[in-house]
């Protein structure tokens, strides 16, 4: 089976060099053709996107853009739509994730981009979203209007299906022209989204493009960076450093690096009636996309003193992971990934030989693994792919001090605690750099309008043009009606 990724307005297929990415998991191999633009083609494409953005997108009302996105999303939510059918069929085959998990994940994720949610998204960042359409009075005096960049370059990474839609939709909402570079691990979803936009609103379709190059192809990356007005990049620190270093100094570069997230379970949640459900929720967060997301938990700090001990809770999680393996089996791992899991598991096992209060519970086939420790372990990532550590603590209040050295890497905390604890801990966690606190079971599905890594998804993309009060006042002197 052969598929095509990329979306290139103004270019014919024959104009472009194509490469083939092959995905072989269980069953027949799937091939995806991806476009490889020359330096000249990238520059020309950038020029067209900028022009289309200026001509068509900037005069368009935000509400019209949101309405188009809503229609696109409705199509992608409709299980009988050909695009949705493709997504359900091929995304699991390309990423290896369980098909049912992908299906449920897509629906949950896409729902956060319906019209009402898009409006929420806008309202989160702009007190008055009309400021994207026309000059609006500012509280300090004068008027202001927010402008999105003519060309926003996105450099995406990873295989979590659909993640590129976040920044792509953000870009459209602020009327940016967009060129997104998809990752080889999942090149399709952004391409389909772009095709659908063009199908529903051909004018808007001229304002975005989806391209590809092999990660590390500095030359092609530079071609796009040189043209962009603003860059949004995802990836590991090394990759991001390179992108930032090559972005012209006059171009802003927003980077989203890899993060570590974790869970916290209060003794209030550890009574015999509730602990199973909490463990089920924690396990769900581990299972979703096999901990590949920045919001996925690596470990759980569990408070002592409840009816269910932290060690028992670790067993509960292990049991739930075992059940999930039946329902949503883990994707097949590459030998490198399996090595990562094995190395983590072995390290934890070795610790358990010298520390009798440490244990490791693992599936015989290596499908999941839970380590338990009472040691003063600090934050560290797990082996990923359904491996997690439970660390028992005297009180959850001790946790912020233990994670504070890792401020730069923290993102989500999934929490099970009583209301007054939640409030107290929220402030302690915010102080040490945690940017998102959710319920367990929701760690991997941030709500619409969330502030990714604590930043403003839309506000960070715009520049303000302000007409100060002095200009208004001075203009009065030159009016026809001046006395």
């Amino acid at each position: 089976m052969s598929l095509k990724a990329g979306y290139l307005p103004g270019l014919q297929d024959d104009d472009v060099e194509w490469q083939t990415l092959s995905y072989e998991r269980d069953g027949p191999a799937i091939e995806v053709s991806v476009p490889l633009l020359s330096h000249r083609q990238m520059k020309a494409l950038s020029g067209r996107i900028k022009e289309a953005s200026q001509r068509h997108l900037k005069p368009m009302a935000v509400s019209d853009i949101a309405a188009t996105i809503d229609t696109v999303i409705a199509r992608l939510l409709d299980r009988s739509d050909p695009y949705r059918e493709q997504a359900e069929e091929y995304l699991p085959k390309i990423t290896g994730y369980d098909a049912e998990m992908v299906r449920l994940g897509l629906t949950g994720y896409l729902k956060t981009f319906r019209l009402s949610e898009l409006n929420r998204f806008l309202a989160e960042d702009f007190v008055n979203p009309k400021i994207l359409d026309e000059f609006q009075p500012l509280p300090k005096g004068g008027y202001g209007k927010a402008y999105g960049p003519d060309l926003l370059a996105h450099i995406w990474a990873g295989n979590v299906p659909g993640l590129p839609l976040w920044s792509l939709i953000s870009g459209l909402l602020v009327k940016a022209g967009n060129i997104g570079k998809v990752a080889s691990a999942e090149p399709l979803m952004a391409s389909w989204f772009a095709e659908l936009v063009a199908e529903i609103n051909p004018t808007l379709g001229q304002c975005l493009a989806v391209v590809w190059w092999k990660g590390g192809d500095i030359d092609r990356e530079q071609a796009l960076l040189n043209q962009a007005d603003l860059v949004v990049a995802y990836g590991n620190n090394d990759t991001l450093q390179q992108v930032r270093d090559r972005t012209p100094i006059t171009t802003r570069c927003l980077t989203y690096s890899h993060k570590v997230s974790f869970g916290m379970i209060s003794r209030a949640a550890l009574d015999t009636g509730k602990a199973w459900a909490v463990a089920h929720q924690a396990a769900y967060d581990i299972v979703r996309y096999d901990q590949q997301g920045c919001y996925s938990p690596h470990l759980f700090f569990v408070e002592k003193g409840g009816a269910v001990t932290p060690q028992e809770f670790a067993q509960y999680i292990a049991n739930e992971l075992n059940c999930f393996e039946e329902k949503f089996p883990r994707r097949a791992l590459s030998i490198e990934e399996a090595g990562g899991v094995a190395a983590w598991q072995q390290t934890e096992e070795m610790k358990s030989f010298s520390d009798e209060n440490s244990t490791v519970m693992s599936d015989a086939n290596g499908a999941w693994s839970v380590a338990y420790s009472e040691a003063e372990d600090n934050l560290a990532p797990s082996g990923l792919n359904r491996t997690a550590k439970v660390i028992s603590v005297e009180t959850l209040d001790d946790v912020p001090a233990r994670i504070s050295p890792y401020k730069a890497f923290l993102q989500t905390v999934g929490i099970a605690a009583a209301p007054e604890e939640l409030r107290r801990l929220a402030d302690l966690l915010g102080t040490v750099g945690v940017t998102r606190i959710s319920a367990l079971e929701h760690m991997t599905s941030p709500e619409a309008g969330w502030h990714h890594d604590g930043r403003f998804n839309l506000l960070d993309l715009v520049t303000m043009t302000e007409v100060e009060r002095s200009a208004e006042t001075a203009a009065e002197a030159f009016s026809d009606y001046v006395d």
Partner: protein
Amino acid sequence: MTEAQIIETLLDFIAADSTSDDQFNALALQIFAYQFENNVPYQRFCRQREKTPRTVQNWRSIPAVPINGYKDLTLSCCDPESAERIFMTSGTTKDGVRGKCHHPSLSVYDASMITAFRQRFMQEHASLRMGILFSTEQTMPNSSLAHYLALALDKFGSDGSRYFFNDGGLDSEQLFAELERAVQTGEPYALLGASFSFVHVMDEMDRLGKTVSLPEGSRILDTGGFKGQSRELELDEFYDLLEARFGVPRGQCINMYGMTELSTEFYDWGNATCPSVKSGPHWIRSQIVNPLTGEELPKGEKGVLVHCDLAHFNCVSSILTEDAGIEVDDGFLLLGRAEGAEAKGCSMAVDEFLKAAQG
């Protein structure tokens, strides 16, 4: 069996021209029983896997200790205090902890090294004039490689063989003079050292615009690869460079694959093509396994190497490495370290975290 009996049996085993599968299996099981009895942390490790000398009937089922186990556990049958020598893993591992391998006597280690080195590196030569691109044993008493190279020079180096490393590092002036001498005399020459030392030498040669063409029969032995070094070369590039700079055909450039956690080394028959097929002598056997389940993989599938080295009798004979490999006819292809892959999403992986956290 006592330690003395094991040593005696092993020396005979190594000295034998070849041995049968059954003989290997029988001795592997005897040594496993010895280690199970005398190496308490290993016994705990085996019991956790529900494996004991009673239940294990085949060397393939002997529990293999992950090499990083040496960092957390003291895996020695003899009293560690009484060891004649302790070899330590390099201190460059991610947490800085060095694993230790205790050797109550070096007799087996040395016999293993000498026998295999003669077969695989010396081949038709009884001795060769050698240059060593590594530190001496006196400078690095805990380095198994320093001991290995010292043995090579002592047992097989002809008069004039010497080290080209001193306190200040590589003594390139002396080395180049020696290489010139070899060219003049036409006497085959052997250059041995860490892979990365060769890179340094070749960088220096590049700077000086220097190449030599060593006499026919000359050979090169490199070991260690480039992991964790400031510069990583592709294998093909590396052997091309060796051939170009020293005039030693790639087929005479032999790579030794060894590790502190073993007492036996693997060799290839030259690197005319990469990756080359590696194999070891009759007292070591390898399996390719799935690192997560430990299950042996079918021939041709990529997995992680497990070695069962009878010569490593005092610690544990069976180790699970972090090296990826593929079984082929007559040995295995070594594919480098199976590093924990980076997450495919935006989650952070252990290696990346350690790197970032250490600044």
